[in-house]
């Protein structure tokens, strides 16, 4: 029997190009704007946790909703009048709440792309060499925790329902103020972002191989897929809407915004 040994291929190397990128467009603009946008959200979030002016009849600031303890001054915005943690909790409500929607956004597939690019420069833009010597992605701790995203999605659905409840509560209040509409727009955008999530898409029917056997789930998947195609704009719109609505309520509560029907 004849055995052949393949000839060792000539050692070849990549083209030696000694610049980080040959791109000539303004590739740095998108990561820069993303960095500024996400940073502003983080800074605002920290301020909103510290700030205590989070309620004025009938509005509750989204970053402080739901009103869970009796020690908070938000009697008119309790979920069905319910205060599940009583009066022992006296720290800012945002500390208790923001971890869930924050975790949802932190582990969101779109936000991962945006902060990996803009904060970690991995890569800053396509075909722009990243500055790190080693890369293991989401294969090990801590980034393997990103796989928890679907659990944050479940909580985000609850938060979305609560924000909708807050908006409805404000909308049925007389007289009707501008803040009610702001809270409603925010709730719609938050729900659009939440239900357009990739994990939601997977849960509805993405995990199936036989769509034809599950027509209702397939229809739900089709709807979620349409929202999912707008996930990036909805992520930004809902981020700014929740900041805007929160700031609006706080400014009304502080008396800085004081026009009629505010």
């Amino acid at each position, binding site marked *: 029997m004849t055995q052949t040994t393949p000839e060792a291929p000539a050692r070849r190397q990549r*083209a030696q190009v000694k610049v980080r990128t040959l791109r000539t467009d303004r590739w740095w603009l998108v990561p820069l704007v993303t960095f500024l946008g996400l940073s502003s959200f983080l800074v605002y979030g920290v301020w909103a946790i510290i700030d205590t002016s989070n309620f004025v009849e009938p509005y509750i600031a989204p970053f402080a909703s739901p009103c869970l303890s009796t020690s908070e001054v938000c009697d008119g915005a309790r979920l069905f009048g319910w205060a599940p943690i009583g009066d022992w909790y006296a720290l800012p409500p945002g500390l208790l709440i923001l971890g869930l929607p924050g975790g949802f956004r932190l582990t969101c597939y779109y936000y991962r792309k945006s902060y*990996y690019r803009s904060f970690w420069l991995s890569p800053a833009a396509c*075909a722009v060499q990243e500055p790190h010597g080693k890369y293991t992605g989401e294969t090990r701790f801590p980034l393997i925790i990103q796989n928890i995203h679907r659990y944050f999605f479940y909580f985000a659905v609850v938060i979305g329902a609560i924000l909708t409840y807050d908006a409805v509560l404000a909308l049925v209040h007389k007289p009707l103020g501008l803040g009610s509409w702001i809270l409603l727009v925010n709730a719609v955008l938050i729900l659009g972002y939440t239900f357009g999530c990739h994990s939601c898409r997977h849960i509805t029917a993405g995990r199936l*191989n036989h769509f034809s056997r599950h027509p209702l789930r397939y229809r739900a998947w089709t709807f979620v897929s349409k929202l999912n195609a707008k996930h990036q704009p909805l992520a930004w719109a809902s981020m700014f809407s929740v900041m805007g609505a929160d700031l609006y309520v706080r400014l009304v509560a502080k008396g800085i915004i004081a026009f009629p029907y505010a």
Partner: protein
Amino acid sequence: MSYKAKFKVWRGEGGEGRLEDFTVEVNEGEVVLDIIHRLQATQAPDLAVRWNCKAGKCGSCSMEINGKPRLGCMTRMSTFEEDETITVTPMRTFPVIKDLVTDVSYNYQKAREVPSFTPPADVRPGEFRMKQVDVERSQEFRKCIECFMCNNICHVIRDHEENKPAFSGPRFLMRIAELDMHPYDVADRQETAQEEHGLGYCNITKCCTEVCPEHIKITDNALIPMKERVVDRKYDPLVWLGNKIFKRTS
């Protein structure tokens, strides 16, 4: 209307080389590959370039134009300013054979590592019955022309050569997703996607989707759904419990 364009073209063999300057005629309606061919015909007869269909369907003429992976035959000269210097280099992720021609055998090696379509043992050819709704999701992935620009742009191997053994790149992770979503495929794709083909390396920065000349939504429709399937399999205790209790199948 024609004009003289300034080009910088990478020339060399086995990685050693440099950008060479050329001034070359451009006519209305031409694409970058036309200009490369004119360079071959008039100034650099030994300039190596791989090409075939000139219609964006064979995936042969993948190159980097002004730093971005593009098909030479689908990049119109009218998208550039007349006074712009256009830089053309080979795909950066793969070793150079000569000039603009790269050795893409990494991709064929990875292709061989993906087990082929595996139907159930009791279904014979001719007995497959599938509804359109069940196959159209994976039909999107069949549009792939294997230009390998997605693998070229992916920073996991573009910037980290050492990851090549562990990572198959978007092209073949998409192939795995296509098979995993197939109603009649019974092979275990999820475990191998994560453990053998390096799905966990993907940090979904979507460059593969950005460069795909067939506009396949590689990240949203293949890689992320595959990641979610891997979560079902490996990281979600509730799904694992549900599958055990209810004996669920997809």
